[in-house]
């Protein structure tokens, strides 16, 4: 049976096990119909022209994982930022692990989506925000909504500065021959509140895993959200990440996406600026090899005047790896005096590596500053000679130049432990020791 049919026929069984009286029930039913209608995207669609899902969708995924898979902390420690204090939401094969997680209900709520959906206490928030800003451009988001049950629920009331980052980590154990998981996260940050979030998807097995994740983030007036996605999965795991961020006046939200692994990764990252003096930052470093594929599909929707957006994506592609950058900036007629910046720079290390870079600017306002630039190149021969003439061997010299190339994306990383790990990860990726810590 094709995956689409399997999912649709599984829906009834899934719904029966859930609460059928809530509004969510109706949303789920609508969503599965939507998915049935549009299905999975194909390469015929412009937005998926360079990303083929055939090899990813061909597995016979289990869509309901068995319950409770025991994992010890020591097995996953290295995938967590463990040297600082954090709240942790850990999911194993799509199921929340209470003994590995650290949640809270003190002043702020860092807890489970499944709990938030059924408890009256959260009803108002869920009614107000759940599934409100998702796009139906492709079938993945409705599919996730249809099966929306587990994920992170984070609610920060106004004026609260959360001093510990929240980590949301999804592990796949390989108990299933092939596993599909669909985390659903809802993050609501009140006026003038601040939070840092780290999200990661990690398979612990070579069995195929497909993650279809949907995250909605609401950033209230003058709030700050600093979000990091760490994508360094095994080459058996694929990720479709759908993230929707709505910002209100004077808010600041930054998203850093570090893509170093996985078989196929598609990041659908959407920013909606609803208010003035909003600042949105979208940055990414992609370093991949073999036949890995990373696709960044971004949208910055400038709806209001006097806002800014900064996009800076760097990619380094080795072997037969492929990358896509499809960055759309949409400026509405009302969005005067905005400043939208977009850059996508790429280095191809091998003849068979590919990057398809496509900036799309749609501007309906007449008094705006929009700039975009895209480069595709190789490592600079003069720079390599300079480093080698200082005794630095070719491999290390190349690594140093690649690090230099990616470094300005790291400058805006505000959590030092993340910066340290990413630089370490870059050094690992490049398989070098440089005589100093990157």
């Amino acid at each position, binding site marked *: 049976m094709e995956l689409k049919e399997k999912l649709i026929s599984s829906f009834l069984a899934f719904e029966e096990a859930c609460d059928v009286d809530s509004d969510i029930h109706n949303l789920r039913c609508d969503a599965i119909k939507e998915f049935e209608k549009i299905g999975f995207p194909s390469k015929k669609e412009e937005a998926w022209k360079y990303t083929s899902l055939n090899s990813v969708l061909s597995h016979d995924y289990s869509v309901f994982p068995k319950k409770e898979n025991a994992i010890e902390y020591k097995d996953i420690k290295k995938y967590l930022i463990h040297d600082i204090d954090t709240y942790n939401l850990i999911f194993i094969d799509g199921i929340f692990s209470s003994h590995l997680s650290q949640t809270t209900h003190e002043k702020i709520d860092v807890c489970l989506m499944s709990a938030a959906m059924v408890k009256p206490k959260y009803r108002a928030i869920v009614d107000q925000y759940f599934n409100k800003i998702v796009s139906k451009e492709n079938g993945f988001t409705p599919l996730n909504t249809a099966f929306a049950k587990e994920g992170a629920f984070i609610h920060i009331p106004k004026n609260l500065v959360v001093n510990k980052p929240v980590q949301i980590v999804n592990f796949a154990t390989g108990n299933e021959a092939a596993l599909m998981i669909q985390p659903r996260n809802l993050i609501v940050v009140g006026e003038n509140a601040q939070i840092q979030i780290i999200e990661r998807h990690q398979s612990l097995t070579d069995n195929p895993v497909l993650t279809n994740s949907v995250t909605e983030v609401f950033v209230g007036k003058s709030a700050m959200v600093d979000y990091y996605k760490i994508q360094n999965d095994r080459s058996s795991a694929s990720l479709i990440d759908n993230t929707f961020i709505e910002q209100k006046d004077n808010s600041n939200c930054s998203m850093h996406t570090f893509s170093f692994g996985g078989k196929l990764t598609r990041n659908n990252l959407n920013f909606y600026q609803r208010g003035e003096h909003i600042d949105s930052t979208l940055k990414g470093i992609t370093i991949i090899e073999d036949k890995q594929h990373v696709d960044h599909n971004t949208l910055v929707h400038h709806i209001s005047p006097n806002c800014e957006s900064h996009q800076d994506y760097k990619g380094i592609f080795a072997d037969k790896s492929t990358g896509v950058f499809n960055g759309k900036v949409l400026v509405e007629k009302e969005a005067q005096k905005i400043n939208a910046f977009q850059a996508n720079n790429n280095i191809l290390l091998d003849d068979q590596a590919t990057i398809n870079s496509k900036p799309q600017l749609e501007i309906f306002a007449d008094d705006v500053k929009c700039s975009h630039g895209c480069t595709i190149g190789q490592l600079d021969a003069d720079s390599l000679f300079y480093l080698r003439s200082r005794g630095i061997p*070719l491999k290390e010299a190349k690594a140093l130049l690649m690090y230099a190339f990616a470094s300005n994306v790291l400058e805006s990383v505000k959590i030092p432990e993340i910066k340290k790990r990413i630089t370490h990860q870059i050094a690992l990726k490049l398989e070098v020791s440089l*005589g100093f810590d990157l």
Partner: protein
Amino acid sequence: MLKIKNLHASIDGKEILKGINLEINPGEVHAIMGPNGSGKSTLSSVIAGKEEFEMTSGEIIFQNEDLTELDPEERAHRGIFLSFQYPVEIPGVSVTNFMKASINAHRKSQGLEDMPANEMLKLIREKSELLEIDRKFLSRSLNQGFSGGEKKRNEIFQMAMLNPKLAILDETDSGLDIDALKVVANGVNKLRSSDNAVLLITHYQRLLDYIVPDVVHVMVDGRIVKSGPKELAYELEEKGYDWLKPEQV
């Protein structure tokens, strides 16, 4: 120390060096002067091992070893240093970290462990004082946003750190004001000893007032057309290069 015999080199099929002969002994300072496009910078790049240039004939012997088959980093490990006319910018890598990478790469090639951190700091402090380099400068990204003079000073700082056997200074004087030139020249002079050598590539005699050469060579159209004592530099300053055009030699 360095023996270049009948060196021919070309780039993209175009011959730039047309038979260079040059011998430099330990303790000596040689200067190569010549008009633009005569091949001076090419010669320095070829000695340092830049791969874009093809050595079509001749040989470069350094300390009794043929350099022809050696990579740029291997030549560096043997003690050849090239101060670049246009040093490249490396964002995100500080001057200090770059020097650590460079020094430890040299040590690794000799089978030594990384230099201990305190020793490294001491060396950096000592050499940055020699070149009158501000401490803050060392934590800046290498050459990024540096003025022309800062870049050149930084090149000589790197030379001081690496203490090469043969230092080739390619147009190190260009872009320097007179005070910076004195600092750089002073740095070079302090590093001179009886067992290292310096090859200066320059347009102007000005630098040679501060780093006094033992031999001055004149290069025109890919050949050394005249060699002589330091007074030759003054003669060139006065008369230009026209009287030395190869067909007239």
